[in-house]
């Protein structure tokens, strides 16, 4: 009974959100529409975070790295090669996936806090590289004046904020739909199984590292596509878009939205980012303080989410064929 009520509530929230998103450009001013388009792009990154963190149980703070790769790839392609949005999307998704694939060896065997740490370092280093690689990224000044894109060959250029917003909305809806559909297949089942009991999945003959690598690359592609949307929406890109606070905000949004829910992550991230933008307008200078306190409050107020942490908790013993376990305990922490 209660489950049914929750499900109905969820459907209701989803319907209201979708209706509000579709009607938004006709009810608010242009500036807000532009902000909303940017927020939607961030929401798509949050979907990729939820895919890794919630569905696959691989917590991440580094999805800004493929997001940035996609954004810059899209900006460079947009200024030099093509103004077709679909091409931008493809190139950006490929760039994000490529960056994620490069980092796969680093993340494939890490879990838990170690993974958080490694992904955070990867994300921060990627932003540092973006800030210093002046010849391609324009350094900390960023790339301004990216040409307006057209969605498909033969269609008019996205000249207004409203058109850009609607383009963003359509792409986000399509990609989230694809992610949701894929998660309903066996792939989603395997990812969730790996989250809940990795040892058992491995024992039954599944190749977990392949799943982990696959979901990383897929999440990278989604984040890269979001980067392309960001460039289309604001026609400008700079390292400030990919800072450490962005990844933390995304994580907060994903946690608020219910880690394992892709749609919830989108809604949560949109809410958090909108609250941040609103706070920056209302309380100039004090926004980080309020936001920080909100983080702390959220941690205390959020429900516990059951007994099992939504993270791949245990590390597996080494593959038995390799070598026997050492008889002294593995060095786990501080030793001089």
């Amino acid at each position, binding site marked *: 009974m209660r489950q049914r009520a929750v499900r109905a509530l969820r459907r209701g929230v989803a319907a209201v959100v979708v209706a509000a998103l579709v009607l938004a450009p006709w009810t608010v001013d242009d500036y807000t529409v532009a902000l909303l388009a940017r927020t939607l792009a961030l929401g798509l990154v949050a979907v990729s975070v939820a895919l890794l963190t919630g569905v696959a149980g691989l917590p991440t703070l580094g999805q800004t790295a493929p997001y940035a790769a996609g954004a810059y790839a899209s900006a460079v392609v947009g200024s030099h090669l093509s103004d077709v949005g679909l091409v931008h999307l493809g190139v950006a998704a490929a760039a994000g996936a490529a960056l994620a694939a490069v980092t796969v060896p680093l993340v494939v*065997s890490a879990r838990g806090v170690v993974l958080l740490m490694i992904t955070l370092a990867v994300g921060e280093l990627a932003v540092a590289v973006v800030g210093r690689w002046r010849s391609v990224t324009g350094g900390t000044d960023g790339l301004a004046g990216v040409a307006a894109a057209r969605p498909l060959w033969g269609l008019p250029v996205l000249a207004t904020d409203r058109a850009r917003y609607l383009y963003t909305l359509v792409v986000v809806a399509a990609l989230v739909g694809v992610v949701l559909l894929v998660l309903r297949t066996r792939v989603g089942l395997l990812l969730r199984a790996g989250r809940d009991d990795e040892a058992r999945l491995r024992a039954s003959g599944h190749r977990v590292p392949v799943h982990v690598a696959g979901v990383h690359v897929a999440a990278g592609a989604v984040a890269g596509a979001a980067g392309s949307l960001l460039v289309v929406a604001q026609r400008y890109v700079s390292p400030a878009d990919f800072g450490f606070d962005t990844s933390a905000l995304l994580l907060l949004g994903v946690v608020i939205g219910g880690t394992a829910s892709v749609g919830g992550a989108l809604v949560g991230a949109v809410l958090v980012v909108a609250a941040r933008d609103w706070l920056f307008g209302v309380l100039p200078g004090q926004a980080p303080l309020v936001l920080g306190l909100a983080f702390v409050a959220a941690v205390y107020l959020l429900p516990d989410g059951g007994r099992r942490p939504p993270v791949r908790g245990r590390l597996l013993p080494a593959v038995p064929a390799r070598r026997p376990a050492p008889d002294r305990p593995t060095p786990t922490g501080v030793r001089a």
Partner: protein
Amino acid sequence: MTGVVAGLRLDPYVVPALDGVAYGLLVFVAAAGLVLCFGVAGILNLAHGTLYAIGGYTAAALLDGGWPSLALALAVGVVAATASGALIAGLLTRVAARSHLTQALLTFGVALAGGSLLVGAFGPDDPPVRVPAALDGSVAVAGHRYAAYRLVFIVVAALLAGLLHLVVRRTRAGMLVRAAVDDAEMVAVLGVSPARIRVGVLAAAGALAGAAGVLGAPIIGPGPDTADAVLLLSLVVVVLSGLGSMTGTLLAALVVGQIQTLGVALAPSAAPFLLFAAMAAVLAVRARGLATARRAT
């Protein structure tokens, strides 16, 4: 002959190399606290850079060129950072049973709020830091002028590193900490509360970060970006070091210091990628060992 040629070739790199040692030791003292938190409590403390910034701002506000001010700044900075570390530990205790995500969110919230308070109190600019007048000059090192403060800093930081080694290795507190890393439940059975160890370790990490912030203020100065920069450098060091070993942390910190100074001098065009490349290389080689180095709980 070859010695002369080698000397000529090496000569311009003496100063960056020394700088690298100073930088590396500073990063070590800062990162050691993060290693302690991570090793004992399994906490990724994202507010660690903010603790360093507290020390840095204290130094900028109190140093006036004399020795007493340095002692005062060191005392105030260490106490303030220690208290902040203990505060974070207190906040974390109530959610200790939850996942790493909640810990990350909580510590990031503290970092965000703390950074905002620091900027509100000390202004949005990078404040200048005055070192004691006696160390303000430069001394000759192998025919080069080199800042006296940095030389002294190298000695002091090396002493700190040695002291830390002794404390972790030889004292009862250090043994308890190491025991808690290996088997927290067994330590609890022995009658020592793991919660107390956790608070103590986070406070000690705060003290280390605060000391690094005060002493290192002339090298990595306080400012709105300091917390993030120090956190990133510490993270890279911790990841490079194989997550946990103090000796490894020291080596990794020295390597990072050299990359940031000597590497930039040797290969300016590749400088942005050097840190990334070093991390990728080390991780790729020992990714497997790294993952098994810690059983995440």
